[in-house]
Structure formats: C-alpha cells, structure tokens
C-alpha cells in the first residue's frame, strides 16, 4: 500500500465533489491511502496571488508546512492549488526569508494527473483494468497551468503534453490528437471578463466538437466548471448544440477499473455524460 498526503482544496470540497470522490475511490482500488492534511486552508489561488504577494506565498506555505510534518508526498488535485504550491516551493528555495511558516521546501508536490500517469501507479491501473473504454473518443485537455509556467512546473513538454493521452490510451479510449490541449479556458477571468472567457471556452468546445470527440477530459476543477456549465450559453451564441460531456480523468480511470460508484460521480455533471457512455456500452 502506498500512502500519500492529500490536499483537496476548496473546489473539491465544493463544485468539484465528483473529482474528490473519484480520486478517493480510485485510490482505494489502487491500494493508495490518502491522508487528508489536517487543518488545511485555502491556497490563495483565486485572489491572493494578484492582490498580495506575501499572502499569496504564505497561504500556500502554511499548508505545505503542515504537509512537511510527515515525509509523505503531497497529492494536489486542483491545478490552481498545485500552481500556487509550486510557486511557494520555488520561492522557498530562492527567497527562504519570505516564508513565514516552518516550510523548508521539502515536500514532493504531486499534481494528481502527473501522479496517476506515472510508472508504478500506471502499472497498477494497467493491471486492474476491467472494462476497457473501447470506442470512447476523447480530447485530452490539460489547460494552461498543468504544465506552465515550465520554470515552475519543471515540465519539458509544456507545448504538447502527452501523459494524459497515454493514460487514456491505456484505459482503452482513443485520444484524438488536438492542438488546443494546453490552451487557456479563461477561468481566472470568470468574474471580471466573461467576454474573454466565452471566446476562449467557446473555441475549445468548438474544436473538440470538430475533432468529433465524445467527451473532453480534464484534471482541473476550474476548467471543468467553465466548460461543463457554459455549454448552453456558448452554444446559443454560435448556434451550436455542444452537448459535450466534460469528465475528470479520475472518473474515467474508475470507469475502466469497473468501480461501482462511477455512475454516482458521473451523475453530478451539468452536461450529462451518462447517455453517451450508455450508448458506447461503457456503463
């Protein structure tokens, strides 16, 4: 059994409950024990980082200091949290004096997508596949922060990441090559410039439709919210009925592993994936 610390972040306790559930359930199946950080707080992603530099680092550092109490890795499912944590980590190395908590930069911060796409976990998934997702055409959507900025994430393939595509292939789905996988959906402007959000998200949905994808897969609760909930308004704008399910990659792992609760998670989406999955014989 592998043990790992877990920082769900606000989204997973709120809008992205199905992401949280699927991560916990899939981890169980894969013999991974999650230890939710005690007394965790907001990472500062939504507003601190653009209002107060000190606070932006400290909010992340506070949580990292908690994680550093154990020598486990820290699993972070939300890209925004991940990005903040990685920034704090960088800061802790370059300007340790700016950190006001007992954080020394020694927590291996693991973004959930990277974690599940990595060697041993991937091997375990491979072994436990019960219902390959045959016939499911997906576009993998990494979004902007999963891989960027490369100086923070350390990811080399930031223009054309592949790991989620490989995971989907392993699960038996067909990842469609897609140019827009690391484009921004506009989530951070969701309150201030919805016109830009609509343009960016609309483009992503149109291109996913053009690629004839059955669904779009993501690992970011912001992107998910943006793309899942806006389909009707965006569709009206361009006169198109998108009806494109947006799924978390963990939900698809669970589905392929034959988890009994898959239907429960998948039932939470605004754009209903059940019918599509049924028609493919995957549910």
């Amino acid at each position, binding site marked *: 059994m592998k043990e790992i610390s877990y920082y769900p972040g606000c989204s997973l306790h709120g809008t992205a409950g199905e992401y949280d559930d699927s991560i916990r359930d899939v981890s169980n199946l894969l013999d991974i024990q999650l230890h939710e950080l005690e007394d965790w707080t907001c990472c500062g992603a939504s507003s601190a980082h653009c209002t107060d530099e000190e606070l932006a680092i400290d909010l992340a550092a506070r949580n990292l200091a908690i994680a550093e109490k154990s020598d486990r890795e820290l699993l972070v499912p939300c890209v925004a949290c991940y990005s903040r944590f990685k920034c704090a980590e960088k800061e802790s190395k370059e300007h340790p004096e700016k950190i006001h908590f007992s954080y020394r930069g020694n927590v291996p911060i693991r973004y959930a997508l990277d974690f599940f796409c990595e060697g041993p976990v991937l091997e375990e998934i491979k072994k436990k596949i019960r219902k390959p997702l045959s016939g499911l055409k997906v576009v993998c959507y990494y979004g902007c922060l999963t891989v960027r900025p490369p100086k923070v994430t350390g990811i080399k393939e930031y223009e054309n990441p592949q790991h989620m595509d490989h995971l989907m292939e392993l699960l038996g789905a067909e990842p469609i090559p*897609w140019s827009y996988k690391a484009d921004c959906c506009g989530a951070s402007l969701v309150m201030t410039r919805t016109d830009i959000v609509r343009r960016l998200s609309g483009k992503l949905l149109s291109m996913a439709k053009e690629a004839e994808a059955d669904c779009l897969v993501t690992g970011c609760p912001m992107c998910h919210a943006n793309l899942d909930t806006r389909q009707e308004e965006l569709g009206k704008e361009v006169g198109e009925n998108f009806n494109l399910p947006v799924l978390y990659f963990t939900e698809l792992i669970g589905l392929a592993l034959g988890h009994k609760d898959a239907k429960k998670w998948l039932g939470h989406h605004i754009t209903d994936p059940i019918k599509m999955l049924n028609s493919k014989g995957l549910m």
Partner: protein
Amino acid sequence: MADKVGAVMVVGGGIAGIQASLDLAESGYYVYLVEASPAIGGVMAQLDKTFPTNDCSMCILSPKLVEAGRHLNIQTLTYSEVMKVEGQPGDFEITVRKKPRYIDPLKCTGCGECPQACPVPIKNLFDEGLVDRKAIYRPYAQAFPNIFTIEKGERAPCGLTCPAGINIQGYVALTGVGKYKEALSLIWEDLPLPGVLGRICPHPCEKECNRKELDEPIAICELKRFVADQIKTELPIQKEEAKEEKVAIVGSGPAGLTAGAYLATKGYPVTIFEALPVMGGMLYTGIPSYRLPRDLLAEEIKTIQSLGVEIKTNFPIGPHLTLDDLFRQGYRAVFLGVGAHQDQKLNIPGEENPNVIPGVVFLRKANLGEKVEVGRRVAVIGGGNVAMDAARTSLRMGAQEVSILYRRSLSEMPANEEEIKEAEEEGIQFQFLTAPTEIMIKDGKVTSLRCLRMELGEPDASGRRRPVPIQGSDFFVETETIIPAIGQTPDLSFLQGMMIETTPQGTINVDPTTLQTSREGVFAGGDAVSGPWIAIEAVAAGKEAALSIDRYLRGKDLYEGREKPNIQKARFEEIYADQPKSPRERMEMIPAEERRKNFSEVKKGFSEEQAKKEAQRCLNCGLCSECLQCVALCKAGAVNHQMKEEMIKFKVGSVILSPGFDEYDPGRLIPYGYGRFPNVISSIQFERILSASGPFQGNLLRPSDRKAPKKVAWIQCAGSRDMTGNDGNEYCSSVCCMYAIKEAVIAKEHHHEVEPTIFYMDIRAHGKDFDAYYERAKQEYGVRFIRSMVSRVAERPKTKNLMIAYVDSEGKVKEEEFELVVLSVGLTPSKGAKELAQKLGLELNTYGFCKTEEFSPLQTSQPGIYVCGAFQGPKDIPETVAQASAAVAGASSLLADVRGTLTKKKDYPAEIDVKGQEPRIGVFVCHCGINIGGVVNVQEVKDYAKTLEGVAFVEENLYTCSQDTQEKIKKAVQENQLNRVVVASCSPRTHEPMFQETIREMGLNKYLFEMTNIRDQCSWVHMHQPKEATEKAKELLRMAVAKSKLLQPLKEPLVEVIKKGLIIGGGLAGMRAALELARQGLDCALVEKEAELGGNLRHIYHTIEGNDSQALLQKTISEVLENPRIQVFTKAELKNLGGYVGNFKSIISTNGSDKEFEHGVVIVAVGAKESTPTEYLYGQDGRVITQKELEEKIALRGEEINRCRHIVMIQCVGSRTPERPNCSRICCSVAVKNGLKIKEKNPDTKITILYRDIRTYGLMERYYTQARNKGIEFIQYELDAKPDLNLKEGGLQLKVKDKILGEEIILQPDLVVLASAIVPYENEALAKMLKVPLTADGFFLEAHMKLRPVDFATDGIFLAGMAHFPKSITESISQADAAVARATASIAKGYVSVLATISEVDQTRCVGCGLCELLCPFSAIRVVETEKGSKAETIAASCKGCGVCSASCPQKAVTVHHFSDEQLTAQIEALLPVEGKKAA
C-alpha cells in the same frame, strides 16, 4: 620541411566540394573527394529552383557532377569518412573508412531495376521523409556515381532471437509485397517444416519484436503459416551433386527431419529410422490435430522425402538393430534425434492405477487413434503445453469436466498464453496453487485426488517463485481420470553399450557447437539433448548437425566459423514512434462451443488481405532484410552481401573541408507542430514537393490528403534569430528569406490559384539582384508579406488545415486559416562536420561553425587545412562556390612548387587514318537489363540494324556500358576493322564520353562515334506500346547510322598560354588577387587609376568584428610593392585589350605613356563607391553626413562625435528605391558597427537607426543584438513613409512614423548619418573593351549568378570585389582568392585546349557582314581584314560550338564541326519514309 605532396583531399561532395575538386584538378593537383553519403551533389541536388534566376537546380548541377565524376584527376570516395589526418602542411597522411555498399561499383551499371525487387521500404531522406524508398537505393536519378547502395543496419531482433536463425524480416517483407513463393524459399533455407512451425512454434521472436514498443509485435508465426499455406506447388530447392556417404538418422521428429532435409540437399543419401508406425515424432504423437492437421504434416514430410530422404517407420534402433549395426551396414555418420517421449512420475501413491495416464502416453495414444477411456471428469496435472494439449484432447474425447491443477499461479505457467486462453474458452477449469499428494482409489478405480494448497515463496533457480505447501490445507478433487503432465525425459535405453555418454539429467552429452557425441561419427540434437523443449530448437539442432556431418564426412574442421558472432540487435528508434498505430491482425477461429466437439483445426489462418496488412506493419528495423531478391534480379551480378568495410590510406599536401550543413530540425519548435501536423512541412520538404523528380512528381500537393493547397504560409526564421537560445540558433541563416520568396513564386507558377503568404521579421534580400526579385514577388506574383513573428500553429482537427494567429500592421491580433504551412528552417553546422573537426583538432566558433578570422576567411585553425561553404558560416550557393575556389587558391599556393607532379595523363595509341575508307559501322544495341529490353524488342532492332547500309557488325548487350562490354566493343572494332561505332542505348549526356574513350583506346578518333537514346525516347516514354517503341528505336537507329556514315575525325588542338595576369583595380580585392596570383607563381600587372593603392579600404578604420582595417591596408600595400612578381601601375588605365584566353595583349596607359603587356588572364576588380546623397539636407547642412564620413570622424575627429547627444542614422538612402531597386548589402552592418563604436566611447549618446529591414545577415546578427542591448533604438519605416528631415529653429527635426506606436514621432538629433547607396563606377567603356556585360545597375555581370560567381562568359576574364556587388572585406578577400584560383586553373596547364566541335568560316563564301560577330554570346567570332576584304574568323580558343553563327549566316559560310548541315540533313532524310525519299 619534408617533400610536399601534389595532391589535395576535399571532404564533402556538395557543390563546394565539387567546385573545389574541379578547380584543384584543373590547376594541376590530384584530388581525393571524400563524401559520406553514397553520391556527391549535396543539398543542391535536393533543391527545385535557385534564386534569383529560377534556374533548375539539378539542371545546372548535373553537368558539374558528370565533370567531377569523370575527371581523370579526381578520385571520388563516396560512402566514406575521414578517420585520421596525420602529418604537417604539405605532407599529410590520410586514413579513410570506406563503408560497404554491398554493390560492386565496377559491375553495377545503375540500370535501376533492383529497387523493384526489394521488399523493404525505408524513409526516403533525399525526399525528406515524404515518401519511402527501398533498402537498395540510389539517392537520386542523376547521382554520381551512378551505382546503387544497400543500406544495412544492426540486425532485426526477430531473426537473431530465432533459434533456427530464420530470416524473419526477409520473409515478412516478401509477404508484404505478395512474394509468397520467395518468402517460403527464404524460410526453407533454415526450416524445412514451415507450415508445421507456422502453427505450433511458441515464437520467442515475437517477444523481441521492436513493434511491441509501438503497439503489438508482428504476428511472425502466423505469417509463416500463411505463406506455407499459400504455396501448394513444389519449391525449387537447390540440391548439390550426389555424394556416396550414407547417413542414418534415428527419429523422424523435427530434429531428424531437419537434419535429413539439409543432408539430402547437400547430396547425401539419408535414411531415417523411426520406431513408431508414423512419421513426425512428437509432431505427430505429441501435438493434437486441432493444432496441427495431419495432412499438413504429411505434406511437409513428403517434400523432405522427395529430396531423397528415406524414412523407415516401425524401425526402432535397439537390440535388433544397434548403432554398431548401422555403421556395419555402411552408414558413415549417424544423427540421434530421438526426442523425449518418456513421462516423468508424480511419485505419489496411486500413480500406477490404469486411470492415471501420463500426458505423453495419453497424447500418443489419442493421436495414434488408439482407444483411450476417459471418465466424465478429468484432472490434468501440470502447467505446460502438454497439460493444455491433454486437457483439450480429453475434452474432445468426451470428458465433461476437465480441470488443470497447477502448483503455482497463472503468471508462472509455462504454457503459451494463447493455448491457455483457448483452453479457458473451451471451458477448461484452472486450479492454481494446487499440488496433488495422493490418488484416492476405490474398487480399483480412481475417485479423487488429494491436494494441498500452496503459496508462493522466494524465487527458485528458474526465477519463478517457489510454491510452498500450506500445512493442513488438504482438499479433494473428485475425478475419474488423472493425467499427470509434469515433464518428459528421453528414453536412451537403446544406447547402452554404444559408447555414447549421457548427462546426469538423462540426456545425451554433446559438444555444444558441433553436436558431436562422445562417439566419432555420431551426432545428436533436439529434446534428446536439451530435454523437452520447443520444436524450433530441435529444427535448429537438426540444421547444425547436418552442417557438422557434412564437414565430418568431407574431413573438414567442424568448428571453423561457427562461433556465435556478437551481432547487435536493432533497437526501437524514435523515428518509429511517428508511425501510425495499427493493431495486430487476428486469425479467425472456430467458436469455442463448436471446436470442443471435434479435432478440426481451431485457427483458420489469415486471409491474403490480412497477411499483407500484417506483414506491412513490420518496421524493418534491420533496414536491408537480406532476402537476397536483389541478388536474384541483378543481371550484372553486382550485389555482394558479404562486402566488408575498407580502410584506405593516401597522402596529400593539403585538405579542403566542405562538409556543408544540416537543416535545423523543425521538430524542436514544438508550437509549430512539425512532425505532429502533416501539413506543416520544412522548406526543404517543400523544395522536394516542387521538384519534378520529387515525391509527388512536381505536383504541388500537401501531405495529408495529396490535394493542391490554395493558401500556403511560410514562417521565416524557424530556428534562426532565436534569442531564447533554447530551441533555436541566435544567428541569421542568411538564405531563408530568398529561398522562401523563390518557393512562393515557384508555387504560384505551379498553380496560379495559390495564395502565398510569408510571415517574417526582416526580409533579408541582401544579395545581387535579390531585392528586385523580392519586389517582383510582391508586385507580379502577389506574394503577401506580413511582418509578424508567428507564435504557434494550431491544426483544425477535421480538415488538417492550420490556424495561424499573428499581429497585423495595425497591431491587431488576427487569426487566419492556411492549408499548408512551410517552416523556413535555418542552417546549422552538420553533425558530421563537427565530428570531423574534432578528429582534425579544428577550433569551432560559438555556434559550432568552423572558426576562421575576418581577414583570412578560409584558413582553419590548423595550417594546411582550409574550409569553405556553409561549414564556415551560413551562406548561399554563389558565396559557397566562390569560397570553394578561394580555398583552392589557399591549398594551391601552399603546393605551387609541386603542381602537376601527381596528376595523371592518359596515353592513347596513335590514331588510325580512316580517310578514304568506306564506312564500316559497328552497331551496339543495349538491353539495359530489362530497362530497354523489357519494352523494346532488342533482337528485332539488332536484326534491323544488319540491313542498314554501311553496317558491318551488330551486337546486342545486356549492359552496353558495363566494363566487360567495353572490352567486347574494342575487340569488335579490331576484328571487324570498324571505322564508325554507333550505340543505341541511353543518354549521351551521361554515357557518350565513356564510349568515345573506348573507341579512342582502339585508335579511332572519338568523333567517329554516334549515339542514340532508345531508353528515354522509346522504352520509357512508350512503355505501354512495345511495338511502336520498337519501331521508333529502329528509326532512331537508322538516323544515327545515316549520320555516322558522314562522321569525320576531328582534332582538339592545344594553344600555348602566357602565364601572366592583368589585374584592373588596386583596392583590397585587386591587391589580394595580385598577391595570390604571385603565390601561385604567376607574374602580374596591377593597374590602379588613383595615385595610391587601397581603394575603399583607405576609408575604413575598423571592422564590425573589431579588427584593424588600416593595419590590413598597410600590410597589403607593402606586400604588393615588395613582391617582384607584381608590376604596379598607379594613376594608370587600361587603354586597350585584345586577344583571347591565354594570349591577351593590353595597353596600359600611365601619365600619357602607353605600355604593352601580354598576359593569359584578366581579373576585374575596379570596385564601387559610396554615392552622394541627394536628399535629407545632405550638402545643405553640415550636420547631415554619410556613414563613410561618420567613420572618418569617429576615427580621426572623435571629439566632434563626443559632443553629440543624439545621432540618428537613416538606412537605405538611395537603395531599394524604384530608381535603384537593389540593396547595398553592407549599410546595415556598417550602421550597427558605427553605432556600437560610438556607444563604446560614449554610452550615453542616444542613437536611433531608422531602417526598412535590418540586414545583419549570417553571424553578424549578434552585433544587431548587441546594438539593441546597448540601447541603440531601431525604428522601422516604409518606403512610402520616409522620414522627414527639416530644419526648425536652427535645429534638425526629424519626423518618422513609428509603426509599433502607430504614431508619428519627432526626433531632434544633432547629427544625421545617411547610409547612402553603394554604386558602381562608370563601367561601360571597360565592359565594352573586355566584351563583358553589366547588370542594369551597372555592376559587372558574371557568367552565371549561381555557379560561376567570379567568371565571365568570356574565357580568361574574371571578377572580384565590389565591381561585382557591394560586399564586406571578408567577402572581397574570398572573391579575390576565388578569381585567382579560377584564373590559375584556366591556364595552369600551360595550354588551353580548343574544342573540336567549333565553328569554322569558309572565307570564300563570307561577305564580312558581321552578323555572326554581333550575335556570338562568347565574343568568339570576329570580322578581320584580309587581302580579300572583310572576313569573319572563329577565335577557336573562345568558341563553345553553340552554332548561333552557323544558323544565322546568310551565306551559309559557317559550319559547326560534327554538326554540319550535311550530317544533320542526312539524319533528317533517314527519318523520312523510304518510299517518300525515293519519290523526292
């Protein structure tokens, strides 16, 4: 210093290497031209057209290839690499590794047939991977040498893994192209039971298949079955002559049958003794027929029998017939292949019960059709294939419930995965971690089996985890029949007392290499030696034993050459990852419910479509598969797969490196999607697409759907001018702007609908006439130019069109869709060149190009080693060619005193006088393999030739150009006293000189030869009309014969030359040329119009690289003045020039006194000047000066500059305007240079440069970067919005529109510096005197803008320096050296040879009208005054035989030899129908 060697090695056979080799060879040096690839030609061979003249690249290159290739003093070493250079300048010893081509260059005729036989497709790198070629290939059709190469790599792992060493890649490849019979023959070489093993082999090869890294391994085994099933006819099996020695084989299993088969093919009489009533051993008794049908087995055994193998069944070796008896009966050797048929015991109570049937016994009985009782429930014990077979067989024999009990778990099970899966499907139950302990018997019958549960412990010797019993876990499995299948051993009881050693494991002890037993003459293999193992191992043993027995019987060494060679397995390479995934084909099977009822074969085999598809999945990771189809096809016998590499040593005095460049790998620019998006291609790929010989035959199509794109975009600077330094290079690649513009123009010419768009940062059209070309592209062709750097390209998922986002001229972000995107990739130093530099100890610069100095651009860091072309820095073709010649000047001056010591000269026999002889014509008609013969009926053409008048001898040849045919031609000439020879074959362009050489060697004048092309013009263009093609071949031949009757021997006279030069212009180029000429050992006169030498260099005070140009000036002048070979005339001019190459006569006028000077060559280096600006208040306000004036101020009156707060430089003053359309090339770098110099002294001085495009091309880009980093401001303006300079309140006020701000800004400089255009002097008079042309701008026009950059069309006159076009000091030096090398080469021999095929004037007819003189493009005919008035005469040394004079002469007074009216008329008349001719 040791004696110098009069030879030079040139490394790299691109255009630079070819030019250098030709110049060297002509200058009297023997040349070794070393090229890494199989052919010379380099990148230029890949290009479609060249800028700015739109010449076809191949058309202008290929004559050079032929010239270099055929040159007596150039030895081309292709497919070779330099390993070592030792020694010192003048005397180097070179070691070169010649890679094996696997084709004998002396035998290969380049007929081009072999690729059709080759089944192995490999990415065609010449076509930049857009299409495939074969493993046997010639890079391109015009390649020199015109021979093929087989590309081999490390071996494919499949074949290396196969115990029998079957050439798997070979038969898979052949299957993929439908050559099943050939595939089967190939298998048969190592396996005489292909259908059998194609069914039952556990295929260890597939586990190693590289394709598994991509998706799934190739279905190798099933493909073997497919080909075996396809071929029902007999295979042509080669048998050696019959031998006498009899061989006995014991056992007819796979080992025995294989040994028998291969001994029989070697001619031995073989008898197989089989104890069982059936043939096949375990193949029959051990393997059920639902896996291996009996008729198939019988069929393959029958094939072996048909070779002469006698099989005696029911014939056990034992007490009745011992081993000794066999020897007594005259058998000279024995092979024991008795297998392992004895079962291993469980050793538990109850095992002796008749309901307990050992697996092998059970299978044997079942397979022999004997009755075996099985109960309702059957328990099989074991996890191997025998257990699976027993379980599945018992099911088919009526058992209801069959279980397999195995003591470990599924993953440790040794049976094949497929077998397990099929058993499961048929309903067999598996009980893992179960070990039997006791068989329970009631009333003499088995009732159940007591078992223990196991768990897995530590791994044992086999690496599998050891099963450990769990105490007290006993349980019972109810069953009526128990089949233990836990292993077999050989039954060797028959060997007792036969002096055959056995092992403690109960197997026969043999020598592992030879398979010889302890008894002489007795060999053994298969399961009897190895213990129970797979059939393919037994086959391998049988084959090895056959080899041993053959050697044994012939008394040869059994061991020789049998050590296992250490061959590397080809690994999975990144390039394969691009391949589209494609799942493995699956065989159709009988449904499980049905198959458990009977013994019909479960698997149905592949359909043909499936098999081909599956075979084509092969990655061909071993490159050549050695299927040997090429060997079978090549009629010239040129293929030799055993060829080895060679090390060659030779001596040279100097080395010239021209290894060229690599294209920047655009795959590194991830955002552009190259490699991911099929319609994003590199510029060199685009060149191939445009090329008529390219992948799409010159049709402009895009890769994804092979449709013609309309909207095509170019993205400039792909990998160049990249300041991140991560993915790209910092420098400018110099050529991309022009080639992109050219590609856009040519694309437009291909398809008028194309809408080309070029995205760029600066357009760098800095070469001669380049800007005019750029303007034409915009205005005449409608090429759209957008100044914006594209950040990424996205692909539309469905159409594969591409989206480009850019910022337009208004600063708005726009997105536009294109159908094809071309990345204008830059040049990088080639990988090979860097390795070479390391071997030679050369210094490289920061970018990895060869390090050279500004004033000695061709000299590497190692004395005696010179560099030229793109390895010295990115540059275009003319500069490359000029540098090549310049490098020759370097090498040649080093070796001037040994010139001509190593060059070869050919001695010919005296010419036979054919005058007055009746024509006796020999005709040779070529088959060219099947190239001509496959279409044209060569026999018929030959017979026809015999009927033609004057033909004395006719012969047809398989390859008329082959070496042995040359001997045949010579013999025919001699024996038949032939005095004319006609060859009907291929192109005279490539082959005529060779045939002329052949007849010359027999004493016939080479002009008594005529050739006609029945390949291109008959078999190629009429390939589907053989009859008509044959008729046309006859007609062409008739014409050739008709002309040949009138052929006359011609002489090629030699004219002595004066080894002196005249140099016009005493600037840097002229002085450099004079010095170099002197170093070559030639005297010269240097004519300078000014009182002082130095020209423009006198006004240059520093260079952009920071070198002292005044020091260069002083040094050069003093060297010139001190050199005794140089006669300097200052304040002088050339008054008259007469004569021709080798024999010019000039009149040099100094201060009114004329002096005559005789010389062989002329170098024009008259320079150019900075123009006087007529705008921007120049001349009206002292604060407005030119760059030249600025430079003088900086150097001499620095305080004036120090006082300036703001200096503005305006670029393109007088350049790039409608009146003067071209760029002045050097002004951008001069501005940057002066700007940096000012900043160096006064960092606070504000400097603004107003420019149109910054053209700091090549490695100078770094100074542009430096300038920006130092705070120099750059503001771009357009021609239609020029800066406006005015006086306001006594100050200078300059208004300019800043495009980034979109607003007009006002500057108040205290100094304005104009980059005024560089213009030529008044050159008209001189040009006229020299009879050479000028460009529209007034610069001198060279013979060819691409390949003859320093020559004039008129022989003996050369060009250097700014008289040609504005250029830098470095470039002037290169060009001066180049002009010297070319001039030297033209007269080095001491004579010039005059062409024989030139014009001659019949002066009795000539009326002296002068039309010919007017029209001659080479100034090679002139009107002279004779006693009989004005008459034309040919200047033989200058005439090129073009025929313009002859065609235009109204008096028909001019004849061109070899193409006389009489000859051509005869040819035309021969074409007319015979009847028509009679009627006429």
